[in-house]
């Protein structure tokens, strides 16, 4: 029979057996026998020799979908479609934002080439909508159509300017920003931050137990990882592949009742950090 118990599962089983043995005052022999029993049980589930029963399904559903603190977010009045604020509605409508029923308070994705282009396109579209809106306003105010056509000629120039700024200027501004910030941080990464309707390039840092988001302009904000309840790595949110096929760290902070999600270009050191934290 092939042993399919992974190292991480083995470690969980060992810890569980040690905990139970300690609580119940088992001898070393009983402890080892319990561990071997748990291993056999896990193996039977893995190989489907023991089919999952109704009680097992209930435990899984309760564990993964029935947690009160998560349900509170999902089912609470703030998540009801009719009562959501304009800002919340816009956030869910946003191309870079997560799905509404698995709401992430703060969201960040890596500041890398393909995401820069996506970001640039999004800013351009927003600017174009604004420019066209202004022009239409003047048009309906009985200004000649020459004004409208003249105004539209500026759009390609505007697009080129924005692309230039995003590719060159913002990159160097981010570099400067990082230099300004505290240098003793344990981990840092350049990201595009999404918070509410605001999407800005910025720096994500971990230092002294805190996760700090510093946008290029505006006030930095931070979260303590003291109440870190759970870290999950995911590519999907509600069955939808998230932006750029990145691996996102989805963090649930119990005290703040906040969920954050972020992806970075180099996830390995962050993964190591969360392994020690959770």
């Amino acid at each position, binding site marked *: *029979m092939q*042993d399919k118990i992974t190292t991480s599962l083995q470690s969980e089983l060992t810890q569980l057996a040690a905990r139970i043995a300690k609580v119940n005052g088992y001898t070393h*022999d*009983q402890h*080892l*026998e*319990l561990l*071997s*029993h748990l*291993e*056999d*049980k896990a*193996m039977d589930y893995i190989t489907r020799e023991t089919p999952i029963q109704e009680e097992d399904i209930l435990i899984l559903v309760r564990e993964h979908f029935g947690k009160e603190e998560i349900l509170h977010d999902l089912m609470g009045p703030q998540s009801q479609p009719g009562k959501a604020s304009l800002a919340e509605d816009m956030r869910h409508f946003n191309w870079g934002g997560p799905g509404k029923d698995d709401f992430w308070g703060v969201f960040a994705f890596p500041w890398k080439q393909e995401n820069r282009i996506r970001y640039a396109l999004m800013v351009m579209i927003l600017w174009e909508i604004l420019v066209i809106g202004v022009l239409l306003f003047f048009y309906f105010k009985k200004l000649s159509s020459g004004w409208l056509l003249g105004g539209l000629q500026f759009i390609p120039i505007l697009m080129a300017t924005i692309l230039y700024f995003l590719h060159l200027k913002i990159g160097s501004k981010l570099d400067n920003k990082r230099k300004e910030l505290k240098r003793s941080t344990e981990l840092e990464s350049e990201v595009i931050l999404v918070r509410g309707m605001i999407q800005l390039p910025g720096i994500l840092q971990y230092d002294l137990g805190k996760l700090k988001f510093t946008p290029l302009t505006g006030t930095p904000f931070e979260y303590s990882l003291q109440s870190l309840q759970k870290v999950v790595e995911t590519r999907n949110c509600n069955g939808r592949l998230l932006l750029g096929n990145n691996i996102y760290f989805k963090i649930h902070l119990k005290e703040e009742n906040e969920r954050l999600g972020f992806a970075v270009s180099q996830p390995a050191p962050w993964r190591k950090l969360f392994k020690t934290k959770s």
Partner: protein
Amino acid sequence: MTQEKELVGASTSLLILGVLAKSPDYGYQIVKRINQEAETIFQWQEGTVYPLLHKLEEEGWIRSQWETAENGRKRKYYYITPEGKETLESKVKQWKEFTGVINRIMEVSHAR
């Protein structure tokens, strides 16, 4: 048909000794073997077998030793002892006598 708990409970030592008389095994496999034989008549909970095994070991009817199982992991195998075999024979005899009495009574009551 599910059996009464008392009826299954009274036969636990007999079942474990019977299984081990056929071949030595470790706790998890012992429960599986008994449950496979019992099919839908009764099903043992996995947790119940270990206290029984430890009790039988204290009685001297079985002994245990750690060995490497088929899956390459260390498992605590239980073996029936000569005393255990004697006890099993005695218990089987008692069981047959007991069920014999019940069968005779049932035959009489059916015949009427």
